[in-house]
């Protein structure tokens, strides 16, 4: 059975290790293996969590996103081997704490593309911590911040005691326009259950996760946050999956690093039930079939979080490709 790899990310000093210590103290998290990635020659974070997780594996040689994809693969394979030999207890999930400078996309791509890992591990949830007191500056100065926020399935605001309730409200609203994922206060999280770590699109109830995406509340807004923008495409007619695959694969190949996130609930030709897609930058996960539509509204919805890409151009491209690549019906062919 495939094991969920949950990723905890967030900019430097956003409270990832503090959260991990709290999570790992929860007795229900006992079947969790922990991987910690550190930037710098001497790893310190693993010492901070060692008390609660003695089998922590440290990925010491740099940032997960650029230099140690092979090391991540080796660490995950190593965990399985050690478990097989009985050196570590059986675990049900893995948590990877990234460095504050990591872009989560290549981590997801490693899991998707490595033939050795695919089938043994799948991406569970991406949890991103946002430092309430420095969020604005980090967004302005560090492109990784936006990539981390856009990739999140759960957004946790940390250090809320250092800002006023009004500032917190503004931050929540800003995060919500960047990514419609649930926003929680990190200090309130003491267990994996509160984070719904057991859920996600690969769980037994993917429809619950899709409901949390709040796709029907997302509106394309002309307002930009820095150079980030949300683009929502809706369409009534069932989608031709082949043409859509050609368009989206071409788009992600050319503009993947500018498409921070894509999520969609799609009404596809010849399929009674909706198809869910989601991905981060170049990396799109395998589509998930929902058992049924969540409501009578069968409108397809695709939400993109864009950085430096024009939403109107994207919309036009989608429309033109859909019309040009649609299979000819008997009527059209005549």
């Amino acid at each position, binding site marked *: 059975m495939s094991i969920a790899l949950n990723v905890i990310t967030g900019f430097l000093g956003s409270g990832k290790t503090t959260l991990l210590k709290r999570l790992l103290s929860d007795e229900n998290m006992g079947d969790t293996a922990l991987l910690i990635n550190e930037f710098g020659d001497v790893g310190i974070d693993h010492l901070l969590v060692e008390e609660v997780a003695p089998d922590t594996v440290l990925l010491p040689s740099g940032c997960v996103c650029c230099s140690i994809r092979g090391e991540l693969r080796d660490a995950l394979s190593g965990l399985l081997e050690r478990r097989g030999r009985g050196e570590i207890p059986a675990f049900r999930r893995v948590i990877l704490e990234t460095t504050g400078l990591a872009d989560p996309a290549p981590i997801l791509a490693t899991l998707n593309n490595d033939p050795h890992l*695919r089938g043994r591990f799948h991406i569970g949830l991406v949890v991103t911590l946002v430092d309430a007191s420095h969020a604005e500056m980090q967004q302005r100065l560090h492109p990784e911040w936006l990539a981390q926020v856009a990739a999140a399935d759960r957004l946790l605001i940390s250090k809320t005691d250092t800002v006023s309730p009004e500032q917190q409200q503004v931050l929540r609203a800003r995060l919500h326009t960047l990514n419609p994922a649930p926003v929680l206060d990190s200090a309130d999280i003491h267990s994996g259950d509160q984070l719904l770590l057991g859920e996600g699109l690969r769980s037994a109830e993917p429809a619950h996760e899709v409901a949390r995406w709040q796709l029907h509340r997302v509106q394309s807004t002309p307002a930009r946050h820095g150079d980030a923008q949300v683009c929502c495409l809706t369409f009534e007619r069932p989608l031709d*999956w*082949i*043409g*859509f*695959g*050609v*368009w*989206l*694969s*071409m*788009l992600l*190949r*050319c*503009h993947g690093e500018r498409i921070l996130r894509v999520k969609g609930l799609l009404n*596809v030709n*010849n*399929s009674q039930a909706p*198809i869910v*897609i989601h*991905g981060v930058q170049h990396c*799109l*996960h*395998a*589509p998930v*079939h929902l058992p049924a539509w969540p409501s009578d509204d069968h409108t397809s919805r695709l939400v993109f979080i864009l950085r430096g*890409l*024009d939403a109107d*151009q*994207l919309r*036009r*491209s989608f429309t*033109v*490709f859909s*019309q*040009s*690549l649609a*299979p000819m019906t008997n009527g059209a062919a005549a």
Partner: protein
Amino acid sequence: MCGLCGLLGEDVHWSDPLGDGLPRRRERLSRIVAINKVLAPFRLKVEDFQGVSYLLLGATGKQELATGLDQLWQRAETLIGRALDPLDPALLNQLECGS
């Protein structure tokens, strides 16, 4: 791997057929028709190779073999010497004229 010809199967990709509505080979040919519509303005053509790969043919006789859509776009860019941008207004205008 095919035991007769020794060819490896196509890699798993998110854009693979969702169900078993059409035979896999027929789905693949439909996809090649769609790809050819997109590549025609660049004077490129794609043919199926053994049901597992794509054979890209350039106007000057250059050829590239690709496995999977991601590699196909990459090889097509190598043949035309620039990025294949689905947002390019010139490409969109040509597709509109052709549809």
